[in-house]
């Protein structure tokens, strides 16, 4: 393990890798402060360029962008009450009131420091989890992995941003689209409609660019520029040092919400927005009555609790991605896709030999990139805040052009541009009709992995693979955990109805 740690560190020490990490961190902060964009969006734009690099630098570029994309959100959330993405919403609850009280700099520095510390705790979580996860992974064969993939897709439906049925439809269609092309064991052509371009399947990069970048820009075109023209920069005040110290003074809030973030990351589909709310909710409940200012009215603990999970989640989310090949979010799905394109197979290979060194490089990047991002945003919070005002009429055409260019450079085929535009149109309709694009991308990435494991399981065990003990255990846990909330809800509702009837009935004692 120690050897792998050192090997991972030496991979990071490569000047090209460090340079790419710095570029990714800077770009991530720019994207983070522009409302409507986010980490997933940046990863999608970077992917075509990362996959032409060597595995180490390619992964470094993407991981650094991904783990620090939540950092810059704090600036706009605190200064203007405008989140850069869903991961910046909970910061507004206490950050914006603090800014109105003239303590914006304190809130921003507390938030940034908390998110850096959270990132470090997330990195520690993955480092500590590796020895535990490793034997577990070695126990799992193709049948178990296939069932886990199906369960993961189902749970994504439960917790994605859209209603359950719509999220499951999105994930299912994503999987079906991911199956276009040659079937892996027999090389049978499937769903290609005699189009030569489709023989290799639909490429991940144009698919994602269409689904996220193009559809998002189409929506921006329909929305026009922001209505809120009288936003003014609030008095920033002083207190940078105080904010940094607050994170350590209120260590309980920092540690609690970071751990919540890391744990949430392990569960597929929740994402940093949910992690923020869960971390904030947990700390608000735990510290109720023990803070100087009430939560929601400018409590510094609230800013810390909301910001610490944003980067901690990435460490947690890397555990299932690296160890099982199951992405916990749309950004992880993109990262997983990049791994496969770079010839890296997640799972056992990432926990042994060269793969383990790469895993440790990722952990070191979590640490390094988080510290750089916090320092950078802390020193540039003023200029970054100005980017939040970029007009949509500038943003939309620029991003659309870069997205089409990004789609083309993957394989230098005009077919990729057509795919990006068609998927962009589908993504736009999905967005406007409340279907989950995140669930679709996760389904798309998981489908080939799922099929490979299904065929292997079938070839080894026949259909009897579903009766293997671990598979049965997984299915039982899955059934219980999906049915239990429905039954509990029904019971609670029935109890509520009974109480209402009781209250409505005339009191015989009167």
């Amino acid at each position, binding site marked *: 393990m120690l050897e792998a740690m050192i090997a991972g560190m030496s991979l990071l020490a490569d000047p090209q890798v460090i340079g790419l990490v710095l570029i990714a961190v800077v770009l991530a902060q720019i994207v983070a402060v522009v409302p409507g964009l986010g980490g997933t969006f940046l990863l999608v734009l970077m992917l075509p360029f990362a996959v032409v690099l060597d595995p180490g630098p390619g992964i470094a570029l993407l991981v650094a962008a991904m783990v620090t994309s939540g950092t810059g959100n704090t600036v706009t959330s605190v200064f203007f009450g405008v989140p850069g993405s869903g991961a910046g919403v909970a910061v507004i609850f206490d950050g914006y009131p603090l800014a109105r009280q003239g303590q914006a700099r304190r809130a921003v520095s507390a938030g940034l420091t908390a998110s850096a510390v959270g990132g470090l705790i997330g990195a520690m979580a993955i480092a500590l989890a590796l020895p535990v996860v490793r034997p577990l992974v070695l126990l799992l064969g193709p049948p178990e992995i296939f069932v886990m993939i199906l369960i993961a897709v189902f749970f994504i439906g439960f917790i994605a941003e859209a209603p359950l049925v*719509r999220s499951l439809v999105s994930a299912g269609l994503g999987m079906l689209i991911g199956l276009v092309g040659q079937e892996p064991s027999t090389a049978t052509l499937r769903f290609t409609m005699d189009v030569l371009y489709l023989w290799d399947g639909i490429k991940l990069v144009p698919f994602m660019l269409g689904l996220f970048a193009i559809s998002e820009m189409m929506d921006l*075109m329909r929305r026009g520029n922001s209505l809120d023209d009288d936003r003014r920069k609030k008095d920033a005040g002083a207190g940078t040092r105080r904010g940094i110290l607050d994170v350590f003074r209120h260590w309980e809030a920092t540690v609690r919400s970071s751990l919540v973030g890391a744990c949430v990351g392990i569960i597929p589909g929740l994402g940093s927005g949910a992690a923020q709310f869960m971390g904030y909710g947990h700390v608000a409940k735990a510290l109720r009555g023990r803070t100087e200012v009430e939560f929601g009215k400018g409590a510094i603990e609230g800013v810390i609790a909301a910001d610490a999970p944003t980067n901690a989640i990435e460490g947690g989310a890397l555990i299932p991605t690296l160890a099982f090949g199951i992405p916990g979010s749309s950004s992880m799905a993109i990262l997983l896709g990049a791994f496969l394109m770079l010839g890296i197979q997640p799972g056992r290979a990432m926990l042994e030999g060269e793969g383990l060194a790469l895993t440790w490089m990722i952990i070191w990047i979590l640490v390094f990139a988080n510290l750089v991002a916090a320092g950078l945003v802390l020193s540039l919070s003023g200029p970054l805040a100005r980017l939040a005002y970029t007009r949509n009429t500038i943003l939309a055409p620029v991003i659309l052009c870069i997205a089409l260019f990004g789609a083309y450079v993957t394989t230098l085929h005009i077919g990729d541009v057509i795919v990006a535009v068609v998927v962009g149109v589908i993504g736009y309709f999905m967005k406007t009709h409340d279907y989950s694009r995140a669930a679709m991308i996760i389904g798309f990435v998981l489908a080939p992995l799922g099929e490979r494991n299904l065929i292997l399981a079938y070839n080894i065990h026949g259909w009897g693979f579903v009766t293997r003990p671990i598979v049965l255990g997984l299915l039982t846990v899955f059934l219980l955990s999906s049915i239990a909330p429905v039954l509990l809800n029904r019971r609670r509702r029935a109890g509520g109805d009974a109480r209402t009837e009781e209250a409505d009935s005339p009191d015989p004692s009167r």
Partner: protein
Amino acid sequence: MSAGLALLALGFIVLAFEVEDVARYMPFIVGVPTFLLASLATITDIADRGAREVADGEERDVGPHALSKRAMWGWIALLFGMFWFLGMVPTILLYISGYMHIVGRERALTAAAVAGGTTLVVYLIFVKLLGAGVYRGYLVGELLPAVTGG
């Protein structure tokens, strides 16, 4: 929308019958529940028609310089058409400056500066530094050589 997705899932299932057994396992395992769920969503949509169209109706919040649905489709079609016909570099220059000037009512100089800057950044970072390829377009790549015989 839901009906369209149900049809799409059904299309995948029907097409899966054309391939041999092993190749249709996964499409069936995923496709059948997806079709059923999409059908359920269609029924729900019909039951509360219109309620699901979250942000695409006239009631959505729109700011200055917002495009109508038709104009938005027009601009997307124009982008794809320009990219295919003119190639990457002229498209970035013309599309960004055109959109900013016509839709965003930006001054011609500002629009040209942003378009020029973006083209330069894309060219320097992605093409020169990262070695990404440039699409030359139908006009320069195929039509002109065919016309001039070169």
